[in-house]
């Protein structure tokens, strides 16, 4: 049996925790304990970090579990027998320039191709002739950080955007 630990970012809403447990039991996972870190909550209506320790038969069952779990919760970290299988990080970036005129959808698609998930996209336009700006929160596996930085660098040069990152 593999001893697994998963860190989830769960919506602070009734039923969210129960939903996240279904894929674990559905794939034969035996839950050992659950820690709901309410003191680290992101505020009312925000997200609550939650750690679940469980046992599962093998890696293929864990992979299937991971696929289903990611449909109902944000997985931030996953490890099996102490070995880290996944660690996600969030990075905010601010794009400054003609964000819309240079095809914002294409910008986001290319970041996603490099391995990022866009969690938030906030656009600010004061005057259509002046530069606009967008703040994007990207979730990514840590190992994808450098490729995403390279993609940002390329986008910046190609589209004349100033990239301000964390």
């Amino acid at each position, binding site marked *: 049996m593999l001893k697994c630990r998963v860190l989830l970012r769960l919506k602070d809403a009734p039923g969210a925790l129960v939903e996240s447990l279904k894929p674990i039991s559905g794939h034969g996972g035996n839950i050992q304990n659950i820690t709901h870190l309410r003191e680290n909550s992101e505020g009312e209506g925000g997200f609550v970090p939650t750690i679940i320790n469980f046992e599962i038969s093998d890696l293929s069952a864990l992979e299937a579990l991971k696929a289903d779990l990611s449909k109902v919760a944000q997985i931030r970290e996953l490890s099996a027998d102490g070995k880290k299988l996944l660690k996600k990080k969030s990075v905010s970036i*601010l794009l400054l320039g003609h964000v819309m005129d240079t095809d914002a959808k294409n910008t986001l698609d290319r970041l996603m191709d490099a391995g990022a998930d866009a969690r938030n996209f906030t656009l*600010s336009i004061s005057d259509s002739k002046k530069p*606009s*700006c967008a703040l994007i929160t990207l979730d990514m596996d840590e190992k994808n950080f450098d490729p995403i930085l390279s993609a940002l660098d390329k986008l910046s040069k190609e589209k004349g955007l*100033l990239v301000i*990152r*964390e």
Partner: protein
Amino acid sequence: MKNVKAIIVGFGVVGKGVAKVLQTKRKELEHDYNAKVSVVAVCNSKGCVIDESGAGLDLEELVELADKKKFESHKKFQKMKGADAIESVKADILIEATPTDIKTGEPGTANFLAAFKSGKHVITSNKGPLAVNFQKLMGEAKRKNLEMRFEATVCGGMPVFSLVRNGLQLNKIKSVRGILNGTTNFILTKMLEDKVSFESALKEAQELGYAEADPTYDIEGIDAAAKVVILANALLGINASFKDVKVTGITKVTAEAMELANSQGFVIKLIGEISESGSLEVSPRLIPKVHPLNVKGSLNALQIDTDLAKEVFVVGRGAGQIETASAIVSDLVDIINRRF
């Protein structure tokens, strides 16, 4: 009593500040450190005032003359290059405070080499020679068993190198990042707090004396990049020079961008960084509002990440005549304690 003879080369804002502090802190130097510092030569770009005969020059008189732009009227003034005075005048320590030239590193580099050649320790506030020739100059100092100190080159009165040398022994410095330029921090703070454009904030910075008439070095990130080079060489042992830094200034940052970042819990700061991978960069960055690097006005702030002490933060005034002189005399006292 330890008798120490010093030469000051470069008698502008910083050089005069050192002269003032040496005057006002003479008793503390004698009482607390058992040291008597005599300045035997002072040079500006026109020439030098030299007196090797006795107790040293009257620094108050020299500051007064320089303030009235009558330095050359001193009875002991002679037309002479700083480097020639450094080589020929008998002294222990050179205080090098000539202006920074980031492209050539001169006249600082020539002054440093003249000092090492004639057996003098060097203390400097000049970033130019270090941004261009750090390893060469440090190598020369070590070869001659002399000290080369530069606390005043990075973040003025805020202790950085002495903090690491005296407080973080055995720590491996993994990365360093921070606000290394007070002018840009003043401008960005103004843009956020008063919701004004970059141009308006720059104008106000110039009116208040935070920015030069030609602000290029500050707003294009060149000043911060020179400091990144010095930090990389001195703290992380990276053999880097100015050309190795990826530099982006703050001229394109808009008030709208500041406001958007603010609405999402961030501020925009010009950050100099030496990452764990060894890359050197100066660029506008998003800093969480609750982060210790979010300091306002013209303050500087530095985060040093180490293997033992983990994250260490320093905040302070990055510029100013007396603040910079504080860093120089701190180096002076340290050399006196170690070498005399």
